[in-house]
């Protein structure tokens, strides 16, 4: 059994991997332990508000690479540990039977060579499936640079695989992760994507039932939102990825001049995820979302920002607009759009009906008419201010008599 101290080290080293979902696979139980639930299940929530769905753990954090942004880089002075395949299998099985977790998320630092590391991870996965009879969810990190045979073989045992893109451009990669290159990351991703597409054509749903994902760090390097969103779009189109995860940079290391000293705020990550959702589910293209200065507007969400730029397309009539157009209205999401389309078959809808259907009317009201009636603002600047205020964005504040801090000083001084 793995001891407490090593579990602590391996958990702490793995926690910066953002992916936690256990969805996309409906693996059935075939006489052993476990199955996978297609929608995924969250088993607990930690103090940072993220869910625990999979046992996220490294096989080892003894890394031979020296990526500046990474907590496990070899020049960093942290306690090191590793676990054997059997220890990980046992822990997974025992946690799974107690219903603590939905499966295993196995990653590793590159200990020795990529091939050696990948072999160990593959051994663990095969043991878990064949010896321990585990049918639950397994998410495996692919080690860039490992042999293609190893990576392909892993694909037929696990539910989801992912390779970390780490940084959104090759230049940053060279600077911050000298042992990695764009090619070493993208080639295995492309190979896995190719295998995945072939398997689906042959109707083989056993190869990576939940597909492939990736993650990148935001804010450690100077790339703009525009570059990141275009890269994301390319990954979805070319490699058929299921998800791209973003992780805003948190300083985890001794200080270096190449990295920002402060953590990047969560707002940028949030806006990128919103844009990501628009790409995947709402039929938006990357070019539509990006502003002239190549960044997303921090004050309002990307859909709102797009609608304000294209205000000539609005307002749309809720009772007659096409479903595609309804999806483009800020405040109307996938669920409310389908409710509207279903309900307007029976009766004309009014603003009250939309409130009942839980449409976010504070945003939508400026972009729709209900039976010819319009209740919003017309000027884009006024709309933007109202929406930003209603979202309580940090940059906007309704002044009161007793507003504190800089604002009240500037009022007293007559500057405002």
């Amino acid at each position, binding site marked *: 059994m793995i001891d407490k101290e090593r579990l602590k080290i391996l958990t702490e080293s793995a926690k910066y991997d953002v992916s936690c979902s256990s969805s996309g696979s409906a693996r059935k139980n075939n006489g052993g332990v476990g199955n996978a639930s297609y929608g995924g299940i969250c088993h607990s929530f930690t103090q*940072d*508000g*993220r869910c625990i769905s999979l046992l996220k753990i490294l096989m080892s954090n003894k890394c031979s690479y020296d990526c500046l942004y990474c907590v496990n880089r070899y020049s960093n002075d942290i306690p090191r540990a590793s676990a054997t395949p059997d220890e990980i299998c046992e822990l997974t099985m025992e946690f799974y039977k107690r219903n603590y977790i939905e499966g295993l998320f196995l990653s590793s630092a590159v200990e020795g060579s990529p091939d050696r590391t990948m072999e160990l991870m593959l051994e663990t996965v095969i043991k878990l499936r064949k010896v321990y009879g585990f049918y639950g969810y397994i998410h495996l990190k692919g080690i860039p640079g490992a042999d293609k045979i190893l990576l392909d073989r892993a694909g037929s045992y696990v539910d989801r695989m992912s390779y970390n893109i780490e940084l959104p451009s090759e230049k940053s990669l060279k600077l911050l992760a000298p042992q990695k290159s764009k090619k070493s990351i993208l080639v295995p991703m492309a190979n896995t994507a190719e295998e995945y597409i072939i398997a689906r054509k042959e109707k083989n749903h056993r190869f990576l039932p939940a597909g492939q994902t990736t993650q990148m760090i935001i804010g450690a390097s100077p790339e703009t939102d525009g570059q990141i969103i275009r890269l994301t779009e390319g990954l979805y189109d070319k490699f058929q990825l299921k998800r791209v995860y973003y992780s805003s940079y948190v*300083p985890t290391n001794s200080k270096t001049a190449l990295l920002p000293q402060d953590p990047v705020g969560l707002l940028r990550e949030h806006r990128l995820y919103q844009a990501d959702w628009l790409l995947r589910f709402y039929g938006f293209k990357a070019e539509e979302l990006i502003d002239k200065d190549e960044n997303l507007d921090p004050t309002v969400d990307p859909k709102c920002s797009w609608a304000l730029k294209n205000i000539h397309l609005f307002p749309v009539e809720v009772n007659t607009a096409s479903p595609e157009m309804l999806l483009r209205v800020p405040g109307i999401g996938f669920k409310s759009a389908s409710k509207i389309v279903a309900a307007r078959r029976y009766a004309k809808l009014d603003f009250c009906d939309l409130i009942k259907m839980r449409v976010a009317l504070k945003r939508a009201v400026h972009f729709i008419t209900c039976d010819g009636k319009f209740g919003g603002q017309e000027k884009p600047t006024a709309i933007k201010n109202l929406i930003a205020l209603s979202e309580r964005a940090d940059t906007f504040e309704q002044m009161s008599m007793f507003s504190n801090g800089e604002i009240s000083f500037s009022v007293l001084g007559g500057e405002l």
Partner: protein
Amino acid sequence: MIAYKISKEKDAIFCALFESFTLKERPIAVFSGAFQPSFDCQVKTINYIKNNAERVKKGIIKCGGISLLSTLFYVMRSSDDLMESIVFSVAHKCLSARKNLTDNYSDPDMLAFYELKTKISHEVHIMTGFVRFEKTLSGVWYSHITPDNDIVDLIAPHFKKRLPNEKFILHDTKRNILTAYDGKNLITLKSDKPVTVYLDKDEIEFQNLWQTYFDYAPVFERKNLRQQANFLPHRYRRNMSEFLGTLESEIACAPQVSDLNGLYKPDVTDDD
């Protein structure tokens, strides 16, 4: 005005419907537990007569098929104070119109009915994650839960599929209902007797490992207790082993936000 007091039987609401249609009167409320009648409200006790309930059930099947009847039974699992009144109104309206009206969301009763239904199905989903099994000396997995609604037998099939070769007990300690799986069949029974569980010798060790994992998995710079409480309400935590010994987790998550320069404001209160 009139209100019906019904007995605790599962299908007692159908007797109330029978009474209402026979006497052509419409009660303002139907209840089995506590109810505060208004000044001019007359409370009428409806006796449970199985035959009447069966007749109404047949009528409901004629109106909306077996699916309507099963949806009514599903919503009756709710422990909402207004559940009886809502189910009564929905069944009454469906019977009067002779068709299934449950998807007519512009009707406030139907909307309330729909919301009770989603609350139950949501809780069934989250409880499949929040159940914690403990290994007992005899090798049976035991779990105690306190869900808001009476759903213990709805969660059990999920675990039957998942752990087909294990034996387990799901114990709803709020309602004293147990669902047990003996390796072949699921059995649900009601028992008011206290349950004593003797734990396996390894159990505490794995609970400690889980506690360690839980304490060191969060990114401390992003502490956000409000979001945690939104997703995992405090009332569920008393049955989850990782929250029973919170001391270590508090030490691990001690504030380390001094160097954040206000970039991220965790708008958090420690009390829920």
